[in-house]
């Protein structure tokens, strides 16, 4: 089901209708749990990232979504959990909530991959906010797990915040080299991953300047 949805249906929609260009996507990604991180501007972000997850890892890969946004209607919740294979975490600290980092940590220990948007929100269209420290916490607890930075360009034009209709405008998905951390601390990892994605964005802009 997920394979059909992402490897055929969404791959075709993104490739043929929307005209998304895939760059640097390698098939020999490390087997086992991986943390994918990307900048976040659109609901298409998680979908487009699911299409580059290796086929046999698809059902083991969870995008991390906000409980307060996706958990508040039955349809959203159902579609996130069943069609996007997402896990919902709470963005605010509540008294009786499980600590989201502990929860994601447990998923990684169980051999699951995660799709994270460290900005924590879709933010301002076309611009990238500062990363939250969640990715740093997770990567520092699991030194062996590679963090794969992905830069998503232009998807916010196809499906901006607050719109329901996809209007094709093209875009780029650029997958960077896996980053493996050993003894960096939380803040170092957070800033290095943010830097990696910012560099990819800059390179894309520079490559097409006159």
């Amino acid at each position: 089901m997920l394979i059909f949805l992402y490897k055929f249906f969404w791959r075709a929609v993104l490739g043929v209708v929307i005209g998304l260009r895939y760059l640097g996507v390698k098939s020999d990604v490390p087997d086992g749990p991986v943390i994918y991180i990307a900048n976040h501007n659109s609901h298409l972000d998680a979908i487009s990232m699911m299409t580059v997850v290796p086929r046999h890892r698809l059902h083991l890969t969870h995008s991390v979504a906000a409980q307060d946004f996706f958990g508040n209607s039955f349809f959203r919740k159902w579609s996130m959990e069943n069609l996007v294979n997402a896990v919902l975490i709470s963005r605010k600290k509540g008294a009786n909530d499980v600590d989201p980092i502990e929860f994601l940590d447990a998923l990684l220990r169980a051999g699951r991959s995660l799709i994270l948007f460290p900005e924590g929100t879709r933010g301002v269209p076309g611009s990238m906010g500062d990363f939250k420290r969640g990715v740093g916490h997770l990567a520092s607890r699991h030194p062996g797990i590679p963090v794969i930075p992905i830069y998503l360009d232009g998807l916010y034009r196809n499906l901006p915040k607050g719109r329901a209709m996809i209007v094709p405008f093209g875009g780029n998905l650029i997958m960077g080299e896996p980053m493996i951390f050993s003894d960096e601390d939380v803040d170092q990892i957070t800033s290095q991953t943010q830097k990696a994605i910012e560099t990819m964005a800059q390179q894309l802009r520079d490559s097409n300047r006159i």
Partner: protein
Amino acid sequence: MNKLIPMWGMSAEIQWVIFIILCILVASSVAWFILGKLKPSKLATELQVRTRSWWVMCACFIVTTLVHPLVTLLGLMYLSYALLREMYPLLNLDARERNTVLVCYATVPIQYALAYFGMETLFLAFIPVFMFVFIPFLLVVRGETEGIVRSISLMPYSLIAWVYGMSHLALLFQLPEYPGFTAGPQGLLLYLIFLVGMNDVLQFAWGKTLGKRPVLPTVSPNKTWEGLIGGVLSITLIAVAMRFLTPLNIWQAALTGFVTAVAGFMGDAIASGMKRDIGIKNSGHAIPGHGGYLDRLDGFSAAAAPFFHLIFFFCYH
């Protein structure tokens, strides 16, 4: 003219043009391979990448042209759509103009359907008459007028440039039978593709070998007078030599070739000017070594409508 492969149902002219295209592709692949081995340079690598892309493009063009008229039409329709889709993100449109963009996309299948069902008059009028008024109105009806002049100019322009022009190639299939002419619409289509493709290649080649004086130094420094004149003259000769694909006589073919080459150059120059204003080198990355659809098809879509109308004037008028 005799068939190269007698068993194959395709007409002799089409078989010959495919043979000629294959010869050119093989010759240039071999030439750049040898050049790259003898004198490895950036130019040699670029030529190899470009030639590889030409192989893919020629294969797509030839297969979609020959399989079935409906496949040809769908292929052209996708090209128009891809051109629009490549242009709109460059224009920094307002998020509220998304609905109008959607209407612009919707004109593509309508325009090609009009060509497929042979409604020539409506086909000719649909975009420049009806959409020309309707799309600016859609922009106005939103009630916000800030920056609207730009959108009012750009959106109908994008439709004329990338949908109206290209769709004339689909209308070639509606031309009536012409006594003694066997290559058919497929022949005419391959003739135009061959002329415009060769036009780009030859202007590039003449410019690289002899080019000194730039034609449009502030728009596109790589285009030279030598390249332009050499290209236009060669295309005029090639058009005469390849006129077995058309019902044209020698003078008509020469004029068609000349107009096609000049229109191709103009389309190229217009696209270069727009890209320079926006501040980008290429409009996209769909075709390795060439850029996006818009970079490759700017000449085609500018030459398509003049080509159709010349053929129609000379032979079906």
